[in-house]
């Protein structure tokens, strides 16, 4: 087979590009540690969230030094708790579920972005560094009030943080 030189150049460049794409994603997943949204949170009975040990009381709780877990319910047309208050310089794992329909969970303008499915617990872990406030919104059409469904995530300076939803 007679392949023109230019064609060889182009083929090789295309192969290198693919190798480059794959290694970039590998770099992101290993060196940077970018993770996928997981379903490790398991499942819940969507019609009995008030009896569920994790979701009967939506809250943020401390589970280790600078490690927190946030149990969030996304429902028509609010997020609970609202605001979700977390301390700065912390690692927070969100467990999000829905008692009614599919919702979205997006911390606006960031990569923290997931779907919330009734009966399924969406689990995602993010690191909060600077104090500040983020918007939180639903980006899956969930009914007539979808456009009003918003919340907020408040990142408080560590010394001002008081744990929400204490027993």
């Amino acid at each position, binding site marked *: 087979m*007679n392949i*023109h*030189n*230019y064609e060889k*150049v*182009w083929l090789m*460049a295309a192969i290198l*590009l693919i190798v*480059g*794409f794959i290694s*970039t994603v590998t770099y*992101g997943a290993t060196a*940077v*540690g*970018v*993770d*996928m*949204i997981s379903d490790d949170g398991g499942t819940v009975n969507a019609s009995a969230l008030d009896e569920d040990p994790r979701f009967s009381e939506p809250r943020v709780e401390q589970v280790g030094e600078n490690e927190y877990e946030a149990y969030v319910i996304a429902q028509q047309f609010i997020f609970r708790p609202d605001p979700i208050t977390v301390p700065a310089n912390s*690692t927070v794992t969100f467990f999000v579920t829905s008692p009614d329909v599919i919702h979205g969970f997006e*911390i606006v*303008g*960031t*990569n*923290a972005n997931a779907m919330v499915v009734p009966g399924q617990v969406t689990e*995602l*872990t*993010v*690191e*909060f*560094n600077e104090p500040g406030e*983020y918007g939180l919104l639903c980006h899956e059409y969930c009914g007539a009030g979808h456009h009003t469904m918003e919340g907020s995530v408040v990142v408080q300076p560590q010394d001002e943080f008081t744990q929400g939803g204490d027993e």
Partner: protein
Amino acid sequence: MGEEQVVREIGHDEYDPKGTLALIGVYFVILLVMWVFMYFVEFLGNELTVV
């Protein structure tokens, strides 16, 4: 009809479409720049990455 055309035949290896090569080269560079911008600047630079 028409007048005689001048026809020049060239072999496979003499055919060098430099313009096409340059155009593809430009596309390739755009692709590289976009990839780097999208992944390293827009995606990794966006705070609150899922870890």
